[in-house]
């Protein structure tokens, strides 16, 4: 023990950092900030360290080449002892990191921590969020499988819409005319050198500012931030009712970080690594690419936006969001910190959470995509075929053979791109059905050229049987104009 002390003294006599470190560790923080709400930042930091370590471990095996990356992932998964576990740790670490960074941001926002004098800390934090998302996206590309390949195509298609320079941006982003080796190398350089380097620098500045400016005091309703008095009030608070960060507050950070690491390890152990899915061979088109969890909401938004809105929203939307986040501490730099006095802030968070959650949920089952094999693998439930005429059953065959089932569900089986047809006959008359099938419209292709008259007749007669028991068929009341309601015969009109 004495020897260690001597070595430490020898080192510190030369490094001269002991005093600074001790002062930093023991700097007083307001007593009520030693809270379980103040642990997300340190947890994000710890997961970031985990990502650096597991990333380096993966780089021992991974080959950043379009021809070999997928094979090297297979070797990691199956050929190297516990390679799968390191991949799983890195993959789950990334999911946890995005989640914790978002939680940290929500907490900081609701506690008003972005207000004076911590505006720059918030701005650096916004960049840290963007870099974290950048790491998540580039990491998904490095898992060079079908999802990564077509995800790059998606990124290129978005980038190409920038007016004027779009195609040039695509070429620079892909490193050439197509998604290939140069693309992967580029994303490898971003994921392994550029963004992590920036992350380390920005995290250092972020932490330095937290130490220099002091951790945000617990927001008390009525304790209003004013630029003129805040710094003095904060120092009085820490002097009057403060405690040293180490060990007063740090034990909660330590416990939470350890719990998070344990959760990452448990998920890695239980669920295993992410993919890779199919080989990145663009001639294999039997694939339904989808992004990783934290980009599912974007996937949903891209499907649900009207075509004309898409390019403006894609190009202008992110700019507006980033500008709003950067402007926030300047516009609302003073005033109430407590969420109890900031109903709009709370509502905004709820609204964003509900919207993102809902889009993400939709992204998990993609109701907007045709089910590509419903026509050949999903059956028509028997209740729609019982006691049907030969013509109606012929129509059911047309329904399957012409892939109607890919977009339209029956009894919840089949695609959800178009409306379910279980009760279509209660909503549409025969004429309307024929018109819809032949002319399409309302986001349905026209089938006029692809169906013979006999097929159309059969299909429509099948569709006319699709209504719940007891519900009447849709009726064209114009047809009964001039008919006697009792007999159904034309009313004789006296001249």
């Amino acid at each position, binding site marked *: 023990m004495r020897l260690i002390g001597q070595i430490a003294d020898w080192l510190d006599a030369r490094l001269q950092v002991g005093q600074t470190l001790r002062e930093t560790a023991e700097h007083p923080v307001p007593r009520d900030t030693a809270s379980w709400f103040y642990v997300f930042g340190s947890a994000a930091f710890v997961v970031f360290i985990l990502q650096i370590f597991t990333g380096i471990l993966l780089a021992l095996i991974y080959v950043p080449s379009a021809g070999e990356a997928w094979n090297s992932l297979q070797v990691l998964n199956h050929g190297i002892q516990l390679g799968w576990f390191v991949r799983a740790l890195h993959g789950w670490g990334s999911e946890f990191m995005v989640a914790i960074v978002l939680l940290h941001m929500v907490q900081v926002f609701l506690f008003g921590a972005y207000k004076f004098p911590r505006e720059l800390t918030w701005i650096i934090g916004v960049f840290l969020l963007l870099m974290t998302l950048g790491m998540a996206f580039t990491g998904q590309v490095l898992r060079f499988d079908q999802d990564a390949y077509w995800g790059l195509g998606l990124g290129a298609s978005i980038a*190409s819409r920038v007016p004027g320079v779009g195609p040039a941006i695509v070429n*620079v982003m892909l*490193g050439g005319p197509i998604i290939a080796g140069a693309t992967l190398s580029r994303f490898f350089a971003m994921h392994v050198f550029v963004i992590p380097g920036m992350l380390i620098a920005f995290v250092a500045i972020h932490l330095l500012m937290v130490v220099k400016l002091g951790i945000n005091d617990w927001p008390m309703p009525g304790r209003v931030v004013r630029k003129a008095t805040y710094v003095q009030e904060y120092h009085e608070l820490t002097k009057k009712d403060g405690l040293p960060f180490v060990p007063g507050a740090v034990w909660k950070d330590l416990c939470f970080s350890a719990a998070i690491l344990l959760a990452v390890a448990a998920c890695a152990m239980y669920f295993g690594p992410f993919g890779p899915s199919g080989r990145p061979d663009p001639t294999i088109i039997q694939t339904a690419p989808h992004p990783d969890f934290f980009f599912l909401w974007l996937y949903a938004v891209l499907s649900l936006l009207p075509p*004309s809105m898409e390019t403006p929203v894609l190009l202008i939307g992110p700019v507006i969001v980033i500008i709003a986040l950067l402007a926030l501490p300047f516009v609302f730099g003073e005033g109430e910190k407590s969420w109890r006095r900031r109903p709009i802030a709370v509502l905004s968070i709820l609204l964003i959470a509900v919207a993102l959650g809902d889009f993400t949920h939709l992204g998990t089952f993609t109701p907007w995509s045709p089910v*590509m094999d419903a026509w050949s693998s999903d059956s028509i439930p028997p209740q729609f075929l019982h006691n049907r005429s030969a013509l109606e059953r012929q129509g059911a065959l047309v329904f399957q053979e012409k892939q109607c089932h890919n977009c339209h569900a029956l009894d919840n089986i089949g695609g959800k791109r178009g409306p379910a047809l279980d009760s279509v006959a209660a909503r549409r008359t025969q004429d309307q059905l024929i018109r819809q099938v032949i002319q399409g419209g309302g986001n349905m292709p026209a089938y006029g050229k*692809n169906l013979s008259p006999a097929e159309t007749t059969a299909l429509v007669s099948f569709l006319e049987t699709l209504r719940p028991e007891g519900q009447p068929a849709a009726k064209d009341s114009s047809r009964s104009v001039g008919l006697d309601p009792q007999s159904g015969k034309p009313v004789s009109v006296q001249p």
Partner: protein
Amino acid sequence: MTNPDDLSRRKLLMKMGVLFNGIVAAVLAVPIFRYILSPVAQERKQGFQSWLSLGELNQFPAGQTRFATYRNPLVNPWDGKTGDIACWVRNVDGKTFQVFAINCAHLGCPVRWFPQSNLFMCPCHGGAYYQDGSRASGPPERGLFEYHYKIEEGELFIKAGEMPTPGQKTQSSLVTLETRRCV
């Protein structure tokens, strides 16, 4: 003791040092930026496109749409399978052809051909196209991308080499929507 003259000379020397570094940085920036932007410069110079064979004409029966692949003209040995690109060949009437890019005009996912309903469908966001490549439904703003083709000695050639994206200019080598025949 430092006299004021001395100080101003040191300041000048430091400014010269900064200026010198600035000049060196600018000189270095030129080749670095050219290196980073080389994919754009390359396209300007010689273009990415060239005529590529899709094989014998008899692989593409009249009235049908068939899957075809080609090797991208610009590939490196380490590109692996990513250099193989797919497309759809429609033989309209035995004499005229349409060759569609595999990429959906929405966000580039691979579209699949369904001969039963004569539709191309996209698995990503639900875009659908008619057999002539025109938009049928879903989020795409336009029809499928179409390559120029030519027939030489019983072989079908297309002009290709770059992934088509919605933002590409109309003067690029793809068939423009305005000039597309309605068939």
